């Protein structure tokens, strides 16, 4: 009784509306599967299946590249008065799909380039003309990699492409030192 009174006093005698209730569900999954993990042999077999899949990435890549191009065109058409976050999102989502799927279907370089573009789109303040030109350069490079069927990481040529794109992004931000404070990420807002 005294404990209850003390607890109520702690919350100004108000009902606790957001009181959290902790629940420990029964681990039926563990009961079903037991212990011991999977053997290395099974994991190797699964990895081999992934590495030898013969799925053609090109139609999928074309679809995402076309969607990315639509995003670029939309950004160009609405440079001054568009919804900035929506415009960036229209370029970001197809890029994310390219990153996610490239590496799954032997095009690791596509994933690497798309990852760099995601990093760029995640930090730009707005989709201005220079930013859109950089996205277009990424798009051109990605299309070239897919059309040229450059699988894997692309070797030395892949590295040179990555370095060139990295330089373009750095130069973009060097020209905008005042934007640095604005690029602080706000984790509290939903995208």
């Amino acid at each position: 009784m005294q404990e209850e009174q003390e607890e109520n006093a702690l919350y100004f005698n108000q009902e606790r509306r957001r009181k959290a209730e902790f629940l420990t569900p029964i681990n039926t999954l563990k009961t079903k599967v037991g212990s011991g993990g999977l053997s290395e042999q099974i994991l190797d077999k699964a990895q081999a299946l992934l590495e030898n899949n013969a799925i053609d990435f090109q139609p999928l890549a074309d679809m995402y590249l076309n969607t990315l191009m639509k995003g670029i065109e939309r950004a160009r058409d609405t440079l001054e008065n568009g919804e900035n976050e929506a415009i960036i999102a229209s370029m970001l989502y197809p890029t994310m799909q390219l990153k996610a799927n490239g590496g799954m279907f032997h095009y690791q370089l596509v994933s690497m380039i798309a990852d760099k573009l995601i990093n760029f789109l995640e930090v730009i303040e707005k989709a201005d003309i220079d930013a859109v030109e950089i996205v277009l350069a990424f798009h051109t490079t990605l299309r070239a990699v897919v059309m040229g069927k450059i699988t894997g990481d692309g070797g030395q040529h892949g590295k040179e492409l990555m370095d060139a794109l990295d330089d373009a992004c750095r130069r973009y931000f060097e020209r905008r030192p005042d934007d640095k404070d604005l690029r602080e990420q706000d984790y509290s807002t939903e995208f």
Partner: protein
Amino acid sequence: MTYQFHRISVLVVEDNLPMLDITKSLLTTFGVGHVIGAQNGESGFRRVREENPDIIIADWMMKPMDGISFTRVVRNDPLSPNPYVPIILMTGFSERRRVLQARDSGVTEFLVKPFNARDLYKRITQVIERPRQFVRSGDFFGPDRRRKATEDYGGPLRREDELSDPKVLKHLQEQQSEAHATLKRIREQAGMEKGDRFDLDLKDTDLM
């Protein structure tokens, strides 16, 4: 002795058909007994109601219902047969704020694409071996999001490397040593023997 995966069912919700096929094939190779597929959140939830799977693996970006909305439905809809079911969210995003967004929707684990067979296996192992407590508060129901216990906490992706990274391992060992030293000190102060049940007031120790 190995995992008896033939006893479980896994639902994969993915709108990209080649990706759906490849994920299902990986699970079949792992020995999963019943692998179910669905191509968006809506049909995914229908399958959840029909099949009550043991694990769900869902993509984030899907239409008309994406992986985040799907997770919320599975966790909160009265028709959901198991709101506690482990949900592994697949996505190309790896940025911190995206991980936090997924965590806040009630996702259990996060799998960044592209992934390899071992990445997928590790996430499945996590939900089996390290299930998370659930929390029900005013506007949230899902796995406990509060993993941040110390200042040097490395984030929700830390567990992956914690035993292979020598720095992290050393830190964990130091924490363990410190905890042992604290327990020893409490025992000495309270005149307790090792193995005695702790039933003392912290005010009697130097911890308060």
